[in-house]
């Protein structure tokens, strides 16, 4: 820990004691606490590091005139100190603990009403409860009573923290029985007997908690609803966190009350109640009694009167993946009921037990609220598809059919009618929420077995959506996603006839001209994504790319994307550039000769890089070259690419957008890596062996020299030198890392003879100036550096052109390591340091104290 901080801390404590209210800002105390926590977490004893804290805590505890925020802070700090056994002992000895954690003490002072203090008390207590000493203190001081009272505190923060703390208490209580058996076999008898004793002591706590839960779970009147919800949340939390024996105890204590609560069928309690039941259910063996009772409870909930509650219960059962097959099957039936009713596709066989629910849901579907019900049904279809096929009420293919029909009913242009509930049509037609949910379900259903039969239907519906004038852009996006998903899972696209294809192409072409940019953007993105889909069987029974089958390949896609490069919306331009990269990647990988069209694209992209007003498009343009370079098996043989790289690098690194600059450096990295990893293009068939890597120095030098010259020619070195002095930290950092990499490769091998010097031109006066400045600083260091001779220093500056620098010299002279260490630190590391925090607290206190009292005040005046 910083010694300067230690020396200031007592003064800070003094300030906090006196003028807690004049803190620099609200978060100061939190930050201070965070700092203490990090100290404690490193393993150092907090008290050893900051001995003044005990004094501070006891002063606050005995003299509670401080503000509530200071009190709350002190309570938390006490917890932090007491979390270690040593600290706990010290606090106990100076009798601070009893006082600080005695609610009575605060009540008498009239401070307990303040939620700020209560939360401090709870969090302090929670922190301290890390060891058995603390637990026995907790038990002896009988703190369980106030903690239970706080479970339903009026402040939600307090109540939630109290819940967490209670869970922690119980966890600690159960540790002698669960941990003790495994971990303390070798301990002596004496210790064992002590641990048994403590367990017995704690059984009182457990009984109290059980009694409390049992009493509070039952809802006596509606006004207690928030409290009841809180208790259920607590119960769910406890049941999830505590281990088997204790959990069984708790469960047995409350199960009667839960059964009673289920019968009240209060809608607001449905969700928390389900959470409790499912939490309890998850870890139980199937044959135990509570499990049977819980399953019965779930059945009761699945037969409640309100369809919305029943749907919620069914969804929760499915999500919990619990093991009772009958329950899961029933839940699936319940969730599919709305779909069955709306579409008239009989997903469910006749079942008299559901008749009542069917009537209720049908009634509900005639109202506007049907939207949410249908959405619940659709959003749970993924869970249903995960079920074993024998639990499913119908084959998944039927569900797909029903979803497709629903999508048809939702489409404004469609004239489809259903055999189902007619009244619902008016609400769902054109409703984009339902459309999106249904499309989402369709996405998931693409994985279902045997659904390839309906591919044509799916394709027709999706084309209808893409064609529809009323489709919301988000619906269009989902439709495109669905097309890609279905194409991915169906390798056989031979069923897509020319007519279907033509309709689809028209729809895509139209959306590319849509008035809404979101629609155009999705279309352009889709064109790119489709290229990534695996190859498939076409109508002509040939193996083809899906984009060729559906759209006729590049001859359709590329012109459309080229048009989109002119789009007024920058997002669309950016997407079209990315999509072009995706579309052309296969041809780059194959090394096919460039077409005129591709050459035009490169010109257009360079224009984008030079002229586009928006960063998105320029970023995408740089990424296009990155993709091209990475995909190209031999970039050096692609003249256009290598011709473009210097332009892109010089323009990109001078961009105003830091992300463009960063991407440019990524391209530079690729070029750099390729330059040194590639076997020299002069002997492409050379066999690589270990020996080859250790070429005689002279040979290595000449290879490196040519690579380095290439790098300079391609503008990589200038870009890096430009980047390293950039004002944006991530850019400078990346450039610095790359220069280090370059130095690592070049400097060890290259000697300093004049004929191995490679000079590099620096673009821009400011860059030149900054590098020169660094060089100047470098010169100073060179004086003491043995590695750098006088000749070097001359060499740097001896070039003919004043804007030229010798690469190797610059790499040596620039203190890249120091620069790296500075750049890796976050830019606000100074302002966020603990020292700065402590100083701020002192300064703020000084500023608020009356003038004349603080000698520094005069100093400030003098300075002024």
């Amino acid at each position, binding site marked *: 820990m910083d010694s300067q901080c230690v020396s200031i801390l007592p003064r800070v404590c003094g300030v906090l004691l006196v003028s807690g209210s004049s803190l620099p800002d609200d978060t100061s105390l939190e930050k201070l606490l965070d700092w203490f926590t990090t100290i404690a977490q490193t393993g150092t004893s907090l008290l050893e590091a900051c001995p003044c804290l005990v004094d501070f805590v006891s002063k606050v505890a005995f003299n509670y005139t401080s503000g509530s925020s200071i009190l709350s802070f002190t309570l938390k700090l006490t917890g932090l100190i007491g979390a270690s056994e040593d600290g706990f002992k010290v606090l106990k000895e100076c009798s601070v603990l009893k006082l600080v954690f005695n609610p009575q003490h605060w009540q008498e002072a009239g401070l307990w009403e303040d939620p700020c203090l209560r939360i401090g008390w709870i969090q302090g207590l929670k922190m301290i409860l890390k060891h058995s000493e603390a637990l026995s203190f907790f038990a002896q001081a009988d703190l369980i009573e106030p903690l239970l009272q706080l479970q339903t505190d009026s402040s939600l923060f307090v109540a939630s923290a109290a819940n967490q703390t209670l869970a922690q208490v119980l966890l600690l209580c159960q540790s002698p029985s669960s941990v003790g058996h495994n971990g303390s076999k070798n301990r002596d008898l004496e210790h064992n007997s002590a641990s048994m004793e403590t367990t017995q002591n704690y059984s009182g706590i457990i009984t109290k908690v059980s009694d409390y839960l049992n009493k509070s779970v039952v809802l006596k009147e509606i006004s207690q609803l928030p409290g009841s919800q809180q208790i259920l949340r607590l119960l769910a939390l406890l049941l999830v966190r505590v281990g088997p024996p204790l959990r069984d105890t708790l469960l047995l204590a409350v199960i009667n009350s839960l059964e009673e609560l289920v019968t009240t069928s209060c809608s607001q309690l449905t969700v928390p109640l389900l959470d409790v039941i499912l939490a309890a259910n998850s870890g139980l063996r199937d044959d135990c009694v509570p499990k049977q009772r819980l399953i019965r409870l779930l059945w009761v909930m699945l037969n409640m009167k309100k369809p919305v509650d029943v749907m919620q219960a069914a969804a929760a059962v499915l999500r919990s993946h619990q093991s009772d097959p009958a329950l899961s099957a029933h839940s699936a039936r319940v969730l599919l009921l709305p779909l069955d009713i709306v579409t008239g596709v009989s997903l469910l066989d006749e079942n008299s037990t559901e008749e009542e629910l069917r009537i209720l849901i049908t009634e509900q579907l005639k109202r506007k609220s049907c939207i949410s019900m249908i959405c619940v049904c659709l959003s749970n279809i993924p869970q249903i598809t995960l079920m074993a096929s024998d639990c499913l009420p119908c084959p998944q293919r039927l569900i797909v059919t029903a979803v497709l029909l629903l999508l048809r009913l939702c489409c*404004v242009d469609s004239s489809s009618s*259903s055999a189902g509930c007619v009244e619902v*049509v*008016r609400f769902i037609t054109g409703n984009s929420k339902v459309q999106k949910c249904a499309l989402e379900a369709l996405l998931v259903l693409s994985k279902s077995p045997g659904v390839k039969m309906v591919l044509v239907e799916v394709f027709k519906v999706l084309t209808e959506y893409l064609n529809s*004038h009323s489709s919301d852009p988000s619906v269009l996006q989902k439709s495109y996603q669905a097309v890609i998903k279905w194409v991915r899972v169906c390798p056989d696209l031979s069923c897509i006839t020319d007519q279907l294809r033509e309709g689809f192409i028209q729809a895509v072409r139209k959306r590319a*001209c849509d*008035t809404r940019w979101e629609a155009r953007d999705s279309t352009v993105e889709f064109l790119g994504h489709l290229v990534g889909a695996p190859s498939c069987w076409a109508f002509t029974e040939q193996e083809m790319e899906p984009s060729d089958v559906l759209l006729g390949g590049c001859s359709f896609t590329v012109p459309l994307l080229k048009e989109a490069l002119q789009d007024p919306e920058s997002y669309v331009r950016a997407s079209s550039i990315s999509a072009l990269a995706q579309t052309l990647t296969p041809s780059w990988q194959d090394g096919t000769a460039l077409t005129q069209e591709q050459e035009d694209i490169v010109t257009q992209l360079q224009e984008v890089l030079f002229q586009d007003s928006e960063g998105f498009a320029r970023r995408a343009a740089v990424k296009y070259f990155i993709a091209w370079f990475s995909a190209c098996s031999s970039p050096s043989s692609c003249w256009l690419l290598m011709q473009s790289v210097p332009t892109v690098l010089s323009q990109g690194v001078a961009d105003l957008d830091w992300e463009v600059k960063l991407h440019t450096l990524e391209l530079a990295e690729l070029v750099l890596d390729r330059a040194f990893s590639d076997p020299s293009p002069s002997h492409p068939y050379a066999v690589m062996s270990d020996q080859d890597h250790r070429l005689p120095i002279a040979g290595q030098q000449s290879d490196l020299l040519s690579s380095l010259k290439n790098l300079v020619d391609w503008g990589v070195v200038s870009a890096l030198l430009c980047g390293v002095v950039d004002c944006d930290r991530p850019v400078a950092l990346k450039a610095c890392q790359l220069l280090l990499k370059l130095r690592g490769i070049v400097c060890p091998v290259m000697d300093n003879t004049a004929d191995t010097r490679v000079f590099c031109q620096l673009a821009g006066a400011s860059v030149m100036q900054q590098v020169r400045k660094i060089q100047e600083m470098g010169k100073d260091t060179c004086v003491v550096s043995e590695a750098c001779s006088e000749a070097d220093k001359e060499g740097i500056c001896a070039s003919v052109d004043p804007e030229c620098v010798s690469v190797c010299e610059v790499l040596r002279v620039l203190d890249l390591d120091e620069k790296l260490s500075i750049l890796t630190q976050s830019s606000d590391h100074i302002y966020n340091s603990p020292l700065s925090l402590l100083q701020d607290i002192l300064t703020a206190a000084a500023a608020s104290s009356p003038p004349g009292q603080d000698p520094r005040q005069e100093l400030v005046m003098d300075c002024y």
Partner: protein
Amino acid sequence: MKLYCLSGHPTLPCNVLKFKSTTIMLDCGLDTTSVLNFLPLPLVHSPRLSKLPGWVLKDGTLNLEKELKECAGRVFVDSQPEFCLPERELLDLSTIDVILISNYHCMMALPYITEHTGFTGTVYATEPTLQIGRLLMEELVNFMERVPKAQSATCWKNKEIQRMLPGPLKDAVDVWTWKRCYSMQEVNSALSKVQLVGYSQKVELFGAVQVSPLSSGYSLGSSNWIIQSHHEKVSYVSGSSLLTTHPQPMDQSSLKNSDVLILTGLTQMPTANPDGMLGEFCSNLAMTIRAGGNVLVPCYSSGVIYDLLECLYQFIDSANLGTTPFYFISPVANSSLEFSQIFAEWLCHNKQTKVYLPEPPFPHAELIQTNKLKHYPSIHGDFSSEFRQPCVVFTGHPSLRFGDVVHFMELWGKSSLNTVIFTEPDFSYLDALAPYQPLAMKCVYCPIDTRLNFHQVSKLLKEVQPLHVVCPEQYTQPPLTQSHRSDLMLELQPPPMPYRRCSVLNLPFRRRYERVYILPELANSLVPSEVKPGVSVATVSAVLQSKDNKHTLQSVPKAPPVAPSKKRKRVMEEPPVTMAPKPLLSGAVPLEAFLATLQKHGITEVKVEETADGHILHLQAEDTLIQLEEDGTHIVCDNNEPLRATLRDLVLRFLQKL
């Protein structure tokens, strides 16, 4: 109150309302869908059309080669197109006092009604309605007269022959009433009868009713009408729109508290959202131009075209269409574009404020200035020298049967690069395209109809709460093609009264009251007496004078003193002595108390019989009957006047006198 329905077309209505003593025609829309049965009128000779085979019945028994031509399996009448007029036999059109026009699309039949029918009334319309209506009529006449057709086909209309014809011709109704287009002279004469009105201006009709136009938000100067008397109010809602387009917004609140609301002119495309359609229009247009094709937009020369041009104004640059020429070809193109800019007071608020800047309210002015939009009266003349492709052409008529559009269909129909985009909802696009088949050109249907949809209208009706709604029968059931869409119909309580062509509806409310004025001197002479707290009554004797639908009570004139006649004195001619009026009686005779009174007067033998309206008392000894009923008492007593008088007095004791 009666409503005579002369048109069955829900958006081109023509109804006559008989209200009080007035006969008011509400709109006179012309159903032009009949022209779809005719061959197009090409502007330049079309070898394709002239070579179409004549139609002959399969067995050869019927040969109408000259009148009917066959094209792609359909039969068309080769004659000047004819229109289906409003019904003219249902009532005598000469009795119509006024015609109220709600918008320029709903007045196209005006010359048929006002000319040669004996019509002597007045037509009321707003200024933009009159001016733009005149343009549309002029255009129609021009389209027809430009390509005169000597032949007029009539044989096919023969009932016996029509029965044997194929396809839609066979099912066409009232073909004998179809008429050729009117002349410009008739148009001028009809429009000279128009009297201009402004929104909310009140026009008195014969003192009986007051009519007043309200902004309806559908087109420039479009209006709904309120027709009201002192105690009754009828609202007539024709094409109205709640969307924010160029016209002034709709005035809804003035429609409140109507006894009857006549609802016509809802959207013809309830499922096509106008915004979505505009987007669709733009994207199809851009798609075609980018592919090197031409776009043809068959449209009316006023109305939606203003919105289309405004939308394109914003879209042109973003879709890189800056260099594409846009042509607007119509005999009235120039006037239409210019008129739209001068009716500032009839425009929506946004556009009104532009005028004060001063800027033209519509951006098409800028399109014209920058040469992006060019307008020509026809394809002849300047246009042919400046025509560049690919381009976008807006031209009429949307039926594709006459006008410059016919030429472009012939010119561009063969190439699949070109697209025809239908934006007007009045004609089925498939029927419109039928005589051009086979057609390689792409067809896109983006009907833009900004009129109220069912959702909006049900909200509107909830708000204005009319007692009864009358509407075309088409609105009371879902469209045939979408029978499951129960939301695409009017669902009201009480259900709306449907009408169809030739219906005569007795509107379901009775006039109960009439305002009667009382002269001050007569009022002075009244002596009110209070019958119950707050209610006083007085008897009035006066002379009722009715003139110009105003009713006035005047004092009874005193008879002039009879001049002593030297001639024979005629007793009978003596003026009747004005006797003081007998007091009016009110109240009821309580049976028990009356019986007790009779007993007091020695009438004991009374047999009481209960009847439907009261009681009959049989005084057996006196052989007399007393009928006590709710609104009358009769004493039947033969030849015993003293007894009758006694009984009468006993009855009168129980009644109050005024």
